[in-house]
């Protein structure tokens, strides 16, 4: 009897121990996650990962065109936009060029840009380590992703100056990385764009201009070279785009320029990437005055800017909105403030008009005055302005430079901070902006590194003046 009991106990004990085994703890991955390895196990899912990047461009603060976007914030920093909300200092600080390092919009812009870079780096890693993906898809996706990385760094380096150049997903190293030189970053931007040009074709996938192709990378590289004052390169590359007359065309109807897949568009971001039921662009939602409560709109066009437009300028008629009772103007390039109808406008990033202006400037700098005037006149003609070739052929080089920048201002206003970056690269910011705000200082040409970022990474130094 006793031995029996003893045996029973031992048996029972064994059952306990056997049961508590590792198998029990294996849980399958949840239905809302796909293991990274699986993502890069097939062409389809890898393409989805790139589609994710396109989608997130519409959601990311810096690129979405909304209230913390490059478009809105850097237009406030110049003489284009003014903040209208009395109680919201976050916009005001940009307008007055007195940005606190803790400004949440500045932080959103920075955080979203680096998150985008991580997504690109993760995709590039995944492509590189996978053996299942076909060569064709690997090249295609690598080219697209590198463009997005170059594009994002372009804005980081231009808005913040020296920033950390992060090219891997090794977060523990990256977390404490220091700021890198502008030369290094610009070199990377050019290398990435060159890689995109080499890997991609001239076709837009599915005919959709929110996909990146060789032309998109070429057009952007033209701008990068312009900024670096490599005039010959800028001219060469912009010419390459302008010559694609099958694909691109300067639209006579100004109201059609910002439509989805318009022929003027080189690269756009689709608001559908945002998900949800709305299909308007964030620019439309942010800029256009509410039909009844205008005070909901955070910004308006500055009066001085509107005055700059001569009366007959078609762009004043088509691209500037007016609110009667407030006597205020707003950017009206995008016509739709709110909609859940099928998408009709995409957010414009690169378009043909800029390429003409790039080439005009580059030609001028290479002393091809006639060529410069010809390109500038193409833009002026569409705007319904007198042609320089017809009225002022003897124009001095200096006057022509001024005309080009004035045209850039009027053509590209509230698009991706063109005005802000133009003033910075020509070192005219102080001259043009000091009268606008009582807080102007030379150092305001760079935004502050966000405070939270510096708390977490003590190796990040602050820009001068903050």
């Amino acid at each position, binding site marked *: 009897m006793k031995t029996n*009991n003893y045996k*029973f*106990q031992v048996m029972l004990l064994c059952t*306990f121990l056997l*049961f*508590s085994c*590792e198998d029990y*703890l294996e*849980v399958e991955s*949840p*239905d*809302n*996650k*796909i*293991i*990274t390895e699986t*993502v890069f196990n097939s062409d389809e*899912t890898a393409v*989805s*990962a790139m*589609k*994710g990047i*396109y*989608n*997130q461009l519409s959601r990311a603060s810096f690129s979405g065109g909304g209230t913390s976007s490059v478009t809105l914030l850097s237009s406030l920093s110049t003489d284009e936009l003014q903040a209208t909300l*009395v109680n919201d*200092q976050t916009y*005001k600080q940009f307008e*007055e060029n*007195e940005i606190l*390092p803790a400004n949440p919009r500045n932080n959103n812009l920075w*955080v979203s840009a*680096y*998150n985008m870079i*991580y*997504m690109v*780096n*993760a995709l590039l890693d995944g492509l590189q380590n996978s053996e299942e993906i076909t060569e064709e898809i690997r090249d295609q996706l690598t080219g697209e992703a590198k463009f997005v990385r170059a594009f994002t760094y372009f804005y980081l380096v231009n808005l913040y100056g020296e*920033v950390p150049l*992060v090219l891997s997903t090794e977060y*523990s190293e*990256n*977390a404490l*990385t220091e700021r890198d030189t502008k030369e290094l970053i610009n070199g990377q931007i050019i290398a990435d764009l060159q890689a995109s040009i080499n890997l991609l074709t001239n076709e837009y996938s599915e005919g959709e201009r929110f996909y990146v192709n060789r032309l998109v990378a070429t057009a952007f590289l033209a701008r990068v070279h312009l900024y670096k004052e490599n005039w010959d390169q800028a001219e060469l590359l912009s010419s390459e785009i302008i010559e694609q007359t099958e694909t691109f065309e300067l639209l006579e109807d100004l109201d059609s320029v910002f439509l989805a897949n318009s022929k003027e568009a080189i690269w756009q971001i689709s608001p559908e*990437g*945002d*998900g*949800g*039921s709305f299909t308007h662009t964030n620019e439309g939602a942010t800029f256009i005055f509410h039909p009844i409560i205008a005070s909901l709109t955070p910004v308006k066009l500055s009066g001085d800017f509107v005055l700059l437009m001569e009366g007959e300028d078609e762009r004043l008629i088509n691209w500037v909105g007016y609110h009667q009772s407030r006597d205020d103007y707003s950017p009206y390039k995008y016509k739709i403030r*709110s909609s859940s109808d099928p998408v009709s406008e995409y957010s414009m990033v690169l378009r043909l008009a800029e390429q003409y202006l790039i080439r005009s400037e580059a030609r001028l700098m290479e002393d091809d005055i006639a060529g410069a005037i010809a390109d500038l006149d193409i833009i002026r003609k569409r705007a319904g302005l007198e042609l320089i070739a017809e009225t002022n052929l003897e124009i001095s080089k200096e006057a022509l430079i001024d005309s080009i920048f004035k045209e850039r201002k009027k053509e590209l206003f509230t698009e991706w901070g063109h005005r802000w970056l133009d003033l910075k690269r020509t070192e005219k910011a102080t001259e043009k902006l000091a009268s606008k705000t009582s807080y102007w200082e030379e150092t305001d040409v760079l935004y502050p590194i*966000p*405070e939270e*970022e*510096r*708390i*977490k*990474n*003590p190796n*990040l130094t*602050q820009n001068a003046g903050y």
Partner: protein
Amino acid sequence: MKNNYQSHTYIVAAIVIGLFLLFSIKPVTATPFPNSYFQEVEISGTIIDKEGLPVPGATVSIKDSKTGTLTDIEGNYELTAPASATLIISYLGFKSREVAVDGQEEIDIQLEEDVQALGAVEINTGYYSTTDRERTGNISRVSGKDIEMQPVVSPLQALQGRMAGVEITPNGNLPGNASTIRIRGTNSLREEGNFPLYIIDGVPINSTPLESNSNLTFGGIDPLNTLNLSNIESIEVLKDADATSIYGSRGANGVILITTKKGRKGKTELQARVYSGASSVPNRVDLLNTEVYLQIRRRAFENDQVEPTEANAFDLLVWDEDRYTDWQDKFFGGTSQVTDVNLNASGGNENTTFRLSGSYHSQGTVFIGDYDYSKVTAGAQISHTSDNNRLNLDLSINYGVDTNNLVGYLNLSAEAFLLPPNAPSLFNEDNTLNWQDWGEVGWDNPLEGYYNHSTTKSNNLVSNLVVSYQLAKGLSFKSNFGYTNLINDELVKRPLRSYNPANTGNIENRSGHVQSDRNSYIIEPQLVYNAAIGGGKLDALIGSTFQQSLVHQQSLFAEGYVTESLIGNLNAAENIGSSSSSNTKYRYSAIFARLGYNWKGKYLINLTGRRDGSSRFGPNNRFANFGAGGAAWIFSEEPFIKNALEFLSFGKLRGSYGTTGNDQIGDYGYLDAYEATRGPGGLYPTQLSNPDYSWEVNKKIEAAIELGFIEDKINLGLSWYRNRSSNQLVGYPLPAIAGFTSVQANLPATVENTGLEVELSTFNIDSQNFRWQTSLNTSFPRNELINYPNLNQSSYANTYRVGEPLNIGLLYQYEGIDTETGFYKIADMNNDETFDYQDRNLVWDRGREFFGGISNNIMYRNFSLQFLFDFVKQEGTLTLFDAGELGIQRREILNALDENSSFQTISQSTPAGTAYSQVLNSNLPIVDASFMRLRTLSLNYNLPGRILEKIGIREGKLFVNGQNLFTLTNYEGLDPESPYGGTEFRQLRSITGGVQFNL
């Protein structure tokens, strides 16, 4: 004999108590033996309690001898004793009685419950039980009857101030909001890694608050809301390693055991109780009135040399200068009704007992709008013992449904501190929202969203079946089978009319839906063995755990309902979208064991251990071992102490050391994975992955002394502890340049919690008609980050400081008013003319210096009075002194009108705003926020039995309960329980009254 054996522990305890009584009550007086001394009498009788129920298992012994017996299941005993002997009858929880035999052959004795005999109360430690006297670990216990009268929603709220080392901070002021509970401080650097383990009747409950989209968002919903307070028999809090190590990887933050009531043998009893009352916000912040407010505003424009216009000074130029609204009264000045009804029945026979209960509780609101909370519960408990006493079955089921109706999307107490006192009225005369007057100046009515309505409904089932079978003498097999299911369903309706009609161009009738479903099972087979070995008593236990928990969560939004009445019916929506959906599975398994040895009730040793595996960790780091040892020496049992220190009725030294862990970290955190983007067809990485992280380990050490003086009329307990939590498992914050702002990782850091806990209870008066008992608990906690290699280079460089507590503020040094600008000036520590974290060198400890509670229990004839004060020594901040800005400020800033005040120049310029926002991060706003609060008071009157008997009622009482009746504090904010800023309140003042009958 079997009976005898099972009650071994009790016998030891009883004998020990008996000996005490013997020893301490009367110094033994030598009496000459009478002649009849050697005559033996056969005695029999029944031992009953106050209610006339038999007391089985009571010890009946003969004084000054080793003879004794136990009562059987009907309370009967038989015993042979000398005719002149004295019987001592003792039983746990009852006062021992001595009765002279005096030749009687039948002695029936009624025992009185002993509130004094704390040492005898059985204490649940989860897998086994012990007594307060013999415990080797640190366990606090609150009895259900101390808390059941309090008109609170979650039982945790009733524990405030009652237990040493247990800190409870409410997070919100809505019924159902989860409180933060910390047992012996903050162990984890992660906020969400500090929840204690909740166990109801042996079944672990997910202690993470439920998510909500309604006004409950902040703090979330307490998962214990659906419990019926009146069903709780006791709440035990396990604190040290000895008590918590058997819970292994889940014990680091302490364990809260909730035990529900069980049925009692005997006649079926029915208890009915009802109470109702009202609550309101007891305090207001002293704010500016319109006249002074406008005066200060005008001064701001003068000082700034800005011309007031209708756009920048609408409060001066557009709004009525004579209008005054007390926005605090407007937003939270209401009175909330409370109603509570409780019914339960219990009874049973030798083999089977049952208890059935039901309750209803409802609460209104102090806020503007239709808020209400209601809870309905049902409970059933059945126990069965087979005739041969070998098989025991114990089933408990607790079910509760609560419904929280809230007005959507408004933080109403915050609104009250944003509006100028002459702002327009909220409603038009026809009771519709006033958009016109607010819209004129470009504002939205602060009640925007007023007609939004959220309904949050939780259904919670907690059930457990315990089966035990005696395999052989001293050896039993036991297993519990627990199942829980918590379904939370929330609907937020956002009708068009809630919004400014001028602004409804792109707004439609909308709804938001959140559904969560938490489902878990647990199976814990165990072998339990007891034996008498080497003159002592051995208790051994070995068992294993299999637990699975599934959590499903989904949120949806829908819009485009044609009319308001259809909102919420997804069929009627034009668009439906999903904003999140997740399914998580968590599995946990373990082997655990315990070995306890009790030698003559003097020396006690307790060893516990556990090997844990959890699916929350990557395959390389799934298992870990935890263990602890505890020992106690009841030195008052030693003859040399007994003889030397007569005033000492009880003395015990105890200590423990061991390890516990923490696995409170999200599921699947180790997976390197992509998720679907919101936009169509895309995938993207949503987190950084780290496959190698492992457990957080908490090493706990404790030393304690417990003393009883003058027949245990004064009991004192002192415990010292030191808990060190290392290998910190954190959502480690990263700069955005790393791609994401955090990653899960183990940090080479150590957080230490040390502290001293004092518990004192005294029986001030103890007579037949008048009894007064006081108990005091105080905790002196100290939290410190003792080690953090390379903190300066880490991402926490500007969050923590080595040698300081975790809960600190890094502040600027306030230097006074800048004589040049007239604005606040803070010290530029490194003279670089910028202000950043390098200048924030001042370390402010935001934690509590000490806290505790004093409760009193007074009984006089039919009256009884209980009241509890709790007290906290801490610092807080006061804001609302930005004189000159649009909005409202505290009345104190009146002084700013005086040139030489301590406030900065009245201004609303950018530099003034910057100076104010910087000074809020300095030491200037810090004030004392200590308080002492009369947390709860209840007065009961037991109706005289004679009257009740006539109407067939066994017992009846009337009672009144008051919560938060007054607070002693210097803090000028709304509520020192929310001491930052001063504009939040946590506690309502409530007064309720009711009646209870037992049939």
